[in-house]
Structure formats: structure tokens, C-alpha cells
């Protein structure tokens, strides 16, 4: 993966108030070493560009069918796009008037990104905000990221990384850490076998990395735990996370509530939803559930942060 120099960017979302302090622009990178079954951004998993189709926006004009040289588009297909035939030439996207067909992932240079986010600098300044690197997993592109962060720090922009924690610790320490003002580090599942089962790989590197970085700069770190019904939000898992964190003397974490909106995204890009569908997977985390989870951490002396760090 390191061979890919230039990442694909999914989106740059301005005016984000949920991804760190103040008003922020979030840069979403495409590609992730994990493959969590509940992934809320399923379009961010693959490292390559994809076509997405949103049935609700389609005005049925047929322009895309006319330009497709591979006959990969058909109204008779449930997902509209035959992804085996599609060569990702994106001609259909270019002619679509309604943005029902969209290209997921576009190439951007460091300069492109800097220009796109720096225009909102006055808002970062008045709100104490900045930029957030998210994904996918931004650290997949360490070299690129290092150059980007260097540029952003030159102009004094506050930087925050959201990471799954699976990366090469040495290059992280040398190339990224000096430029990061803050790191939101996800901890999902403590049991290694379960982690492999639900996230595709072992959690050993993640936990080691966490420990290393937390020891280096506890003030810049905020651990985050996503609450996935019956997977991460079980009492045993949360207790395990809590005692792991307590042992490291962590005082503050953030809990991410579950939202049931992501399966729709799976449909758009034609991936199978791997999370066993049940009632819980279709509802938001309740306030009651949240309170119970909070209690587990409180008993270890760990506070739950509000929306922002």
C-alpha cells in the first residue's frame, strides 16, 4: 500500500462541528487496512476509485446508458451498475445531470487540498478549529500526509488525525507526530479473536501503537470507542477497554454513538452489508444505553468527553 504515493480523496467536508474543537474541515482519505463489518463509511474502504449510484436522485434520463461503452448500466439491474463490467472510465458520471452517478475518490495534490481547506481559515481562527484527517485511514499515506501536514502547519492551521491505530509506529513518530496537534485514536474490540472476526485483522499493532503514543503525548490523545450494538458495546468489551485505559492512566475518552444511516451507503457502491441485520442495527444509540456505557468507564475513573475535545 505504501507504494501508492497519491491518495484518493473522498470528500472535504467543511463546517464540521463533530470532528474536533471548533469549526473544522474534514479531509476523508480513501482506503483502510481494517474492514470493520459496521463501517460507517463503506465507500472509504477500497483504495481505488468507484462509481456510486443513488437511485433517489436519478431522473431516468438515460444519458449514462448512452455513453457506456461496456454496457455496464441497466435499469433491470437491482444496483443499476454491473461492477464486473464497469471499467471505471466515469463517462457516465460526467454526463449525469443529477449527480445520481458519482465518482467516489478523486486525485488531489497537497496543494489542491491546502487550497480547498485554507479558504475557511477565518472560521478556524474565530472558533479555534482547523482541519481533521479522516477516512478511511489517512496513515495509509504517510509520505503524502507528512507533506500535507507540513504545509498546513506552516500557515498555523490546527491539525487533528482520526485513526484506527493500525500503522507503522516508527514512520508515524518521525513523519506525522511532529505536525499533529491532536489524535483521535479508535479502540474497538479488546479480544483479539473478535477483532479479527469483525475488523479483519488483529488488534495487536493497534494496542501497541496506542500505548506508545499515549506515553509520548497523553495531552494530544483522545481515545474513542464506537458503540456498535452487540459487538463493541457489550459489557465485557467495554469493561476490558476501560481497564486497559485505566492501567495507562487515561482520564478521558469519547464514546461514539451508533447511527443506522450507513447501510444506504453500501447499496450506493454495491457492497454487501456484512453486519447481521437486527433491530438494534437499525436504531440510534439510546440515551439510556449511553448512560450505562458511561457508567462502566466512570467506575474506572474515566470521564466521557462531550462532543468535542
Amino acid at each position, binding site marked *: 500500500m505504501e507504494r501508492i504515493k497519491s491518495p484518493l480523496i473522498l470528500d472535504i467536508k*467543511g463546517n464540521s*462541528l463533530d470532528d474536533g474543537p471548533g469549526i473544522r474541515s474534514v479531509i476523508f482519505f480513501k482506503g483502510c487496512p481494517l474492514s470493520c463489518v459496521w463501517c460507517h463509511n463503506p465507500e472509504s474502504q477500497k483504495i481505488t476509485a468507484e462509481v456510486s449510484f443513488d437511485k433517489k436522485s436519478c*431522473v431516468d*434520463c438515460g444519458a449514462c446508458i448512452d455513453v457506456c461503452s461496456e454496457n455496464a448500466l441497466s435499469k433491470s439491474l437491482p444496483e443499476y451498475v454491473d461492477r464486473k463490467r464497469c471499467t471505471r472510465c466515469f463517462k457516465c458520471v460526467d454526463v449525469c*445531470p*443529477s449527480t445520481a452517478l458519482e465518482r467516489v475518490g478523486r486525485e488531489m495534490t497537497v496543494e489542491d487540498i491546502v487550497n480547498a481547506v485554507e479558504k475557511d481559515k477565518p472560521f478556524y481562527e474565530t472558533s479555534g478549529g482547523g482541519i481533521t484527517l479522516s477516512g478511511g485511514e489517512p496513515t495509509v499515506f504517510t509520505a503524502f500526509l507528512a507533506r500535507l501536514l507540513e504545509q498546513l502547519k506552516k500557515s498555523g492551521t490546527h491539525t487533528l488525525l482520526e485513526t484506527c491505530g493500525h500503522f507503522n509506529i516508527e514512520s508515524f513518530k518521525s513523519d506525522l507526530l511532529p505536525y499533529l496537534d491532536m489524535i483521535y485514536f479508535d479502540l474497538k474490540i479488546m479480544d483479539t479473536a473478535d477483532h479479527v472476526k469483525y475488523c479483519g485483522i488483529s488488534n495487536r499493532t493497534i494496542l501497541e501503537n496506542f500505548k506508545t503514543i499515549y506515553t509520548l503525548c497523553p495531552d494530544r490523545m483522545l481515545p474513542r470507542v464506537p458503540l456498535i450494538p452487540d459487538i463493541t458495546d457489550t459489557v465485557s468489551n467495554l469493561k476490558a477497554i476501560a481497564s486497559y485505559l485505566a492501567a495507562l492512566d487515561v482520564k478521558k475518552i469519547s464514546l461514539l454513538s451508533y447511527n443506522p444511516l450507513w447501510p444506504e451507503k453500501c447499496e450506493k457502491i454495491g457492497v454487501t452489508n456484512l453486519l447481521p441485520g437486527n433491530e438494534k442495527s437499525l436504531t440510534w444509540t439510546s440515551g439510556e444505553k449511553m448512560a450505562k456505557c458511561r457508567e462502566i468507564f466512570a467506575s474506572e475513573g474515566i470521564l466521557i468527553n*462531550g462532543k468535542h475535545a
Partner: protein
Amino acid sequence: MNDKRTLTNTIAHLFLQFLAANYNFRPSFRKYLKSEEGWINFTLGIRTENRTVAQAIQFKDGKARVLSKIPDRTDSALIFKDDSIIKKVAGSPPNELMNYIMTNQVIPEGNLAYTQLFSFYLSLLLKNQHIRLLKKAKAKQYTPDETCTMPETSSRIRQKKQLECENTEPGVRFLKDPYLSGMTLDDFPRLKQFLDIHFKVKPAICHERPQLLTRWHMENGFEKDRSGEPWNPELRQAHAFRYLMENRKPIVRENDLLAGTTTEKEIGVVLYPDAQGILIWGELLTTPYRLLNPYDVEKETIDILHHDVFPYWIDRNFRQWVRDHKGYPLCQKLDERFAVYFLWKTVALSHTILDYPKLFHMGTKGIINEIDEQMRQTPPEEMDKLASLQAMRITLEGLNAYARNLSHEAFRLANGETDMTRKNELVHLFEILKNVPENPCETLDEAVNALWIVWVGAHMENTNAGLSLGRLDQWLQPFFEKDMERLSLEEERNTYIRHAVELIGCFYMRCTDHLPLIPDIGNYLFGGSSSDQAITLGGVKPDGSDAVNDMTYIFLKVTEMLTIRDPNVNARYSRGKNSDTYLKRLSEVNLNTTATPSIHNDEAVMTSLEEFNYPIEHLRDWSATGCVEPTLSGRHIGHTNCMMFNMVAALEMALNNGEHPLMRWQVGPETGEINKGAFPAFEDFFEAFCKQFDFLAGQACQYNNFLGEAHQYLRPTPYLSSMIDGCIQKGMDATKGGALYNSSGSACIGLADVTDSLMAVKQLVYEEKTISFPEFLNAINSNFVNRPDLLARLKNRVPLFGSGNKDALEMANRITKFAHDNFGKRKNYRGGAYTAGFWSMSNHVAFGTLTGALPSGRLKGKAFTPGLTPEAHASKNILDNIRDVSMLEPRHMNNNIAFNVKVVPSAEDSHEQAVDHIYSYAKAYCDMGGMQMQFNVVSTDTLKDAMAHPESYQNLLVRISGYNAYFVTLNRDMQMELIARAEFGL
């Protein structure tokens, strides 16, 4: 000819016969044919455009007669689009007639008063049926598709959290916590009681003012005085004003700290028959039952207005004066079709600000001395000047008389009062009123009472539409300081601060004691608007230093606690001068009230006025007027809301070679037929737009100037003039240009819609060439039916104003520059300039309903965006909106702007975080050079819930464009427009 007549013609004839018979033979009806001065004689024509129906009804010397041929000369005529519209109107209550006129399905000709009178006759006959229809309409209110339950958000509106603040403000001398976080409405039972009245009492039309004025004029003449000499209009007006003030009922309201009222009612609708008053004639019987903003009208009031008042003013109102004296010009006919512009001088020229500091420091006595001195220095041959001065003097005597009557009333009440606390208050009031406004004010109590009494006077002379209060925090601070300095004990001072809050609270509630008279059509044109009495806070002092003081925060506290729509609070924010503490408080008050105050970037507003080279210390003394517009306080007649100008109409006319589609009227210059390949390049089409704009602006300004002359004759303003700098020195009435500074301000409506439409034409027709102009026009004319692909392309592929696209921004700046230069090249009747503003009151909704589909993809009848706010789908990112608007050149927008931002606090946000977010937006916007910004801090779900359950949301305040209204009082289109506005999470 006659073979064209249809069955409808016969039915109409029979119906008119039936009406005539009732009025001829039933005494209970016949008596309404008579006024105080005798029989009311007029002829009204009724026909369809192609004359399938043609009838007339004549009222003469107490007889009604139906004529099968319309005489050559009628006083008034109604021209119906076709037979079907006649049938519809015949079955509708009288308030509907004006709505048919607005939508150009009925075209009125001649004196509108007679149309209204005829409508009244109809309504008298069909009253019961009409009331039944209105009640039915009321029952059929909006029910949402799904039940919305938003307990969190609605409770958020009601539950006001408060930040505390340590005082670090240099201008705040006495408040330890400028945010006054310890006080809540519960501490002020008096204010709670007044709020209760405000929300529960149904307003009623008051006949006091029109009756007294009409009586005086009947006795003393209007055109000529009793000796048969022509009246000097200013002296006539002054004598009538003094008579009115001397004879009005002096009312000291139960429990109030201020004396005086604008009407005899608890909440009164003030009636100005010389302005728009007569337009309510036809609706007098049904107004209590109408769907939106109903008023009560007592039987006595109906009789007085019908017999005594209205007939006297049929020919003595602004519209009719222009019709009679300027030959019913085209510019007037255009106005009376409602689709291209609306001229506010048909109602008022009130948008200005009196020189309150002068009054506070000199009293009327001091001003009278100044007038006397000026008169002594004026040679006797300068008769007009002497008359103007004399007139000003007389009006001030009238004001003093009213104050004296109030003081007697306070004394009388004090004598009869058994509660000792109240008795003391009344005695105190009696003492205050003995002194002010005649003498200089000494205390805050005196100043605020003088302020209110002078304010009442202003409304007795001029229509309650946008008269504004100015920089009250600046002007009242010296009195507050003086009072505080007399107190040494901490406890005394705290008690006094509490009193100051209560006093200002009482003043706010007094300001809600009157409503403008709005015929039902006004509910669609200006829905939910009160009289927009703007107060301005903060900014810089004339010397350029930070102006924020104790009173600034006291006003903010009152604004927050009361959360009422009027007064309309505007805050100036001067970067580098005003503190973050202040801007943060403005943000918090917006969060807690959901909609106020609006925030102005002081630097940008002053930059916009640079071209006039006003002395800097006068410029720094600017205040918002009506909605948002700048007036140099106390020395400027800017009639900043002289017209609502529909820029989109110019675009529609450019698309149709000068024909306006809704009006079915080839009225503009022929600029080229698209179907004949008229516009080889985009610039050619832009040019056509400019020509149509130029034509409409020329007409609108001409009408404004004619109406200005009507004001000079019918309703000069000697009272106002006595308190506007320049008038005494020049010895000239404000309507004639007596003020130190003169201008007229327009509101250009539809900037985003025009910009986006021109961008669409430019890109699709001329750059990408994906569609030919004729094909595009065809799609527009068919409201994009069968062209979802085109609609989708317009929505998604054309960069809009507010999307962060440079070309769209450049287009918007090009349009504002053109509008500014076009208005700027014209002169008004007082020798001043025309200015261009980009805000819309609520006319973006009304004009929207009168406009077809647009190249931008906006569908037929849909509202335009409010003010110059970008289209909701311009960007998913509010920052793009804010940045684009901030980059509009202020020098092109010298009558200010209204930029609406709807934000929704997240349930997870703490109060402090929500305040911080609003602060960050406002601060960054001003840092980037933005001019004005106003928030709606409320979610779409809450608004939907309020539509379904209006009873639970009576006090839900929303910002329309420049003014505030209660959401539940708005018409459905306006409610839907608010819901459709882009919403951004906090």
C-alpha cells in the same frame, strides 16, 4: 359588440340588480349610501378583458342603478381576466378581492377607494355567507404529513440558559456582570403580565385618530380654510395635529411605568385614512374573522369610519392625489398591479430617526425657543419659511398639551389608588409628566417617558411603518449614569439596575401597543410584520471610540427576556473597537431568542456610504431603520424603504421581449425575441436585462417622486421636522428637503435568483451549448414539466451564488453594481440620491408567487430567497454561503442587506458551545468584510411542529428578511419558505 356577451354577463346584471334593489328599498342598507357630508355618488364598471361581461353600477343621490353599458367615465372599474374569475370573486369574502388583484386576475382601474366601498356594500349584503366562508378556511389549517415531536428543541426555545461574564468592558461602568445572568423574566411580574396581554389580546381597529382628524378638517377645511383662502399645507397639518393631541384620551395603563398610548385600545390598529387606511373599507365587516392576523372592529367604529371618515378621504389620499394631479401615470398603474414593485410612500415615509438627544437635553421648550429665534431672524416676506416654522411650533404645543393631559390623568388615578406601591408610582409619573417632554430630562425615568410620549406623537402624525428609535443605548446612558452616581450603596444600585431593566421592558411592551393597519393583501405582501420600530445598539461613538455601555447590555437583557418581534433590535459590531464579550453576548441573545438582534458590521456599513462624503462624526452615528437600512440619526430623511423592487421582473421581461407574463402586458422596451435568435452572445442578454431593469427603476422612482409631492401637499410633517436637524435652520418641512441629509432607499429583491438564472443561461446556452435558448425558454414557460433532466442539471451542475464559485460571485457583484449605479444616477424629489439595498421584508415570498419559472430552475410561484441569501442548495457548507456574501462589495449596497442564516443547535452541544459557534460564524463573516447577518436558530422540525400546533408556539420568533415575526402569524407560503431555507447544524 353585444354578441360577445356571455351568460355570465346576464348573471352579473341580475346580481347587481339584486344588490341595487336591496340598497334602494331596505332602509337598513340604504343608510349606508350616505356620508356625514351627504349621499356618496360614484359609478363602478365591471367587465372582463375581452368584454364578454360589461356592466356598471351607479350610486347617485341615494339611488343605486345598474347600467348595461359602461359609461365613458367611471370613478373606478374592475377588469376581470375572464368569466371564471368573476364567478370566483363573487363567491369569495371581500378580503379575497385584493388577492385576486395582486395575482393580476382582476385589474383595478381608477380610484381604489370606490372599489373598496363597493366591496363594503357587497359585504354588507353577503356578510353572513362571507363570515361562514372565512370560518371554514380557518378550520382547514395545515396538518403535517407526519407527526413531529421535537420536545428537546421546543423546550430549548423556552428554557433560556445564561452565560455569566466578568466585566472587562471599558464603557460599562456599573454592571458587574454585563450579561445580567442573574435576572430572569420571573423577576418581573409586571412584564410577564404585559407579555400575557401581548399574546392574548386580539388587536382592534381604533377610530380615535381618524375621527378627530376628520372632524377638524371638516370644520376647518382641507384645501381652503374657513375664510376661503388656500391652506398652507403645513399649517393645516399642524393645527389638525394639535387638535388631535389636545383631544385624544389620555390613558395611563394599569400598572405601567410609562404614560400614554397610541390608541384607545389595549392593542390598537392605528388608522391613517390619508394613506392606505381606506383599503380596509371593504373588509371592515369580515376582518375579525380572517385567517391571518384578524382585528376586532366594533360596530361603532364601522359606522364612524363608513359615514364620517372614509368618504372624506376618498380623494385625499396619496394614491388618488397622484391619479388626479399626474394624469394616472404608467408608473402608478404598474404599482397597482403589485408584480414589479411596491411603493411604500402610498403608506408612509416614516423610515427615519428623530433627534432624541436634542429633545432630551432641550425639551420641547428649548426647541420652541430655537424656532422662535429662527422666526425672528426670518424676514417677513419669506412667508413659506415662516409658515413652516410656525407649523413646527404648533405641533410641539400639541405634544405638550397631550403630556399635560397625561399628567392630570396620572394625578387622578393616584388619588383613587389604594395600593400604596402603585400610588407612589402614579405620583412619581405625575411629577415626571409635569416636567417632560417640555423641559430637559434629568433622570432615566424622565428620559424614557419623554421618549415614549414623543414616539406617540410621531405616530399620530406619520404612519406606523418603520419609524425608528435609533441609538437608545447611547442616548440613555448619560441618564443612567447620573442616576447611578447618586446612589452609593451596593444594594441601592442593584435595585436601581433592576428598575432600569423593568423600565426598558415597559418601553418595549409599550411599543407593542399598536399595529399597522394591514388589509388582507398585506398578509401576503408583508406577512406578520409589525411596524418595525428599529433600535440600534453598540458600534462606535461619533468620536470613533467603543460605544458599548451599561445600557447596551440592559437593552440586550430586555430583548432576551421578552423575545418579542417589535422593537426590531439591531446591533452594530465594530471590529477592533467592540469587544468579543459583546459579540458573544449578541450571539447568546440570538440563541435564546431564536432570531434577534441582527448583527451589522459597522465598518462595512460605513464603507457603503462613503460615496456621500458625510462628515465622519455623523456617519458614525448611523442607526438601522425599519428593517436594516442606515439612517444618519436625527439629521437624515432617507426614506430607506421607499420601494420594494422586484429585480426578477426585469429578468422575466428580458426573457419575453419586454412583456411581463403574469400581467399579460407588453410594458417594457422591446429588447429582443429569444425565439428569433435575438441574443447572439450572453452579453446581449445581460444588456436586455439591464434595459428592463432601467425601465422599471425609472418608473418606480418617478412614482416615488410623484408620491413625494403628494406627501408635501396632503401630509407634510411639521412635527417630525421639528426634531430632524436642518429643518429649523432651513425653515423647511422634512417632506420638502428640510433635513440636513436627503435620500431615498430601495430594496432590490431577488439577487440570488437573478444571479443563478444568469449563470444558468451563460453556462448552458452560451458556454456548454447543451441547450438552445429557445428550447430553454420553452422549458421555462412550461415550468420544466417533462424536463426533469434539465432541472437536475440546473440544480447540480450550474455553480450558484453562495457555492464558493468565483464566477457566480462575480455575477452577483456585477448585478449589485449595476443596480447601485442605476438607482444612483437618479434624483429624488428632495434633491437626494437613490440608494440600493438587498433585503426583502417578506416580499421575496409575495413577488415569488407572482413570478413564473426561472432559468435557475426555480419553479413557478415559489418564493425567491430572502434578502440576498443564497439558494438553499447552493452548497452543503454554510461557510461557502457566508464567504460569498461577505465578499460582495459593500459600496454597491448602500441601503444595506439582509443575509439570513438558519442554524440548529445540536442537542449534544452545551449552551456555551452553541453560543461559541454562532459567535464564530458572525466574527469570521465580519472579519472577511461581510455587512449584515441575521440568524434563525430553530430547526425545520420545530417549524413544522409549529404549523401543526400553533397554539403551543405563539411566541416562536423568526427572522424574515430584516424584520421579526411570530411564525404562527405568517401565511402558509411564508411558513413554507422558512422551512425550505437551508439549515445548518451547529
